[in-house]
């Protein structure tokens, strides 16, 4: 089966900075590919290359079977893009924004108006449709931005951190839209910093760090690889931390991290919790707090790369400086 999105060895250099260092990824038609990574990992640069906004320094990519550099115009007919920052004209109304895009992609006036009205309705913006977008709240702007990327009924949709800063309801709405679209056969590439979001939506995941793909596969596989959950134990007596760390490490099968008060370790089997309780009890250690929670992206990163996501923040600043998203 041909891939809807395929990239091989993408490299992108901004002056001295190597933003992408050989990114390869692929998405089958009608699936969601989640691109996961901390700020500055290269998610935005990858998206921009695939959406024909910037050319790779090396490597190649195809969208819908077309080369993103040599056949950029053909690629543009297939794709929709929602950037990290809402790409809407704030001086125009919501309706005018959508009408503008419909007209630009060649819809007759009547069809463009109908499509604009339909999308406003779908994203709960009908009431605000006649107001200038500068009066919109952050969530409304995001919804309008997403609506804008759907005007031309794209076959491949790029969503670059579409839910960053969104309230839970809007986030849920967006997830529903993505599911609906893939149901219609649209391929979606979604970048996110949220493991949960990737888990909810993605059929496949690519984890990027410092411009390189450090892991890929279905979410279940990755979670199994890094431990989908995190066990945290806080002994009452600080002196017990070493003993707790030994027990947790032994049962979780991964080296625990010992903090000020907490001992934590990634676990893939929730049954570890009861086993740990039993062993701590046997050892006579009193526990003040104990919990099992979902692994954060930071912990996935720690498990995959051996360093925390924040450490890459410096590269991020450089990237955002030269790449207005």
């Amino acid at each position, binding site marked *: 089966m041909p891939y809807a999105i395929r990239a091989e060895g993408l490299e992108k250099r901004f002056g001295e900075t190597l933003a992408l260092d050989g990114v390869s990824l692929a998405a089958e038609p009608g699936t969601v590919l989640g691109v996961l990574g901390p700020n500055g990992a290269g998610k935005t640069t990858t998206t*921009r290359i695939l959406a024909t906004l910037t050319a790779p320094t090396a490597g190649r990519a195809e969208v819908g079977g077309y080369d993103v550099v040599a056949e950029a115009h053909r690629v543009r007919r297939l794709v929709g*893009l929602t950037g990290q920052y809402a790409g809407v*004209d704030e001086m125009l109304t919501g309706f005018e924004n959508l009408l503008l895009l419909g007209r630009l992609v060649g819809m007759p006036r009547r069809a463009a108006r109908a499509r604009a009205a339909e999308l406003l309705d779908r994203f709960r913006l009908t009431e605000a449709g006649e107001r200038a977008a500068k009066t919109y709240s952050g969530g409304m702007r995001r919804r309008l931005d997403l609506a804008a990327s759907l005007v031309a009924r794209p076959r491949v949709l790029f969503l670059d951190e579409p839910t960053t800063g969104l309230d839970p309801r809007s986030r849920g709405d967006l997830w529903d839209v993505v599911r609906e679209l893939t149901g219609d056969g649209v391929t979606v590439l979604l970048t996110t910093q949220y493991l949960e979001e990737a888990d909810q939506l993605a059929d496949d995941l690519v984890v990027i760090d410092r411009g390189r793909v450090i892991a890929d596969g279905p979410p279940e596989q990755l979670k199994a690889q890094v431990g989908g959950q995190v066990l945290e134990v806080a002994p009452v007596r600080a002196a017990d931390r070493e003993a707790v760390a030994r027990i947790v490490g032994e049962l979780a099968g991964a080296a625990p991290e010992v903090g000020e008060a907490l001992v934590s370790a990634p676990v893939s089997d929730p049954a570890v919790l009861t086993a740990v309780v039993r062993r701590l009890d046997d050892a006579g250690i009193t526990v003040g707090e104990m919990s099992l929670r979902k692994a954060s992206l930071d912990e996935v990163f720690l498990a995959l790369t051996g360093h925390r996501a924040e450490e890459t923040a410096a590269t991020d600043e450089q990237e955002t400086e030269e790449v207005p998203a």
Partner: protein
Amino acid sequence: MTTATAPAPATAPNRVAPGEALRQTMTLTWRNLVQIKHNPMELVDLSIQPIMFVLLFAYVFGPAMAGSVTAYMPILIPGIIVQNALFASLSIGMGLNTDVGKGVFDRFRSLPIARSAPLAGRIIADTVKQAWSMAVLLAIGIALGFRVETSWLNLVPAFLMLLAFAVLFSWASVFIGLAVDSPEKVQIFGFTTIFPVTFLSNAFIPVSDRYPHWLRVVMDNNPVSKLVDALRGLLVGHPPGDPSGSLPVGGPALTALVWGLVIAAVFVPLSLRMFRRTA
């Protein structure tokens, strides 16, 4: 699932047809003009400000400079029309800067439209705004005693000349728009360059021996002076205060356009380089 895999036929053109490009440009022109509806301040900018400048200059400087408001009109109106055209060209850079900052620029670039359409749409919208400002300035001038002493038909070449210069000059504003991080900075940069450049010319005063030699050299060779000379020649037909004298048009107009070409020759490559870095 099935339709998703089917790419458009390989024969689908990889380019935009000229007719399509024109239609896209007009759509984007509409976009730039309909903005005025939601930002009435822009209309104020385009009308009230020129009127205010004309009134201030006419009543404060007119009597001292030419003896009366009416006598000052042949000096002031062509001068202020040129100054206004330069200021108006800033809006291209400011708009571009806003579009880049808000992601609108990326949105347009991700669409299957002609690469030139966003900029061309802006320039055409700007032309409409320029025409409006020029009409406002002429109207207020006529109310204060300005007369087109040649032929009203001369307004056409006058407008085309100003427009050609403004389009060339606006590449400086495009470059600044891409180089700085807020539209306000484009405006600040514009004001701090355009004010001195227009004042060191014959736009508001007759250049005379009273100025030191070096300043006269600057004033005489300023492209703004050339544009003002050509505009006065086209609309008034003779030097201020000398009804029998003649004012050539072709020479100054040509010099001004050469200046415009030089400015564009500097800023087009710089803008394209900046544009590639941004992309």
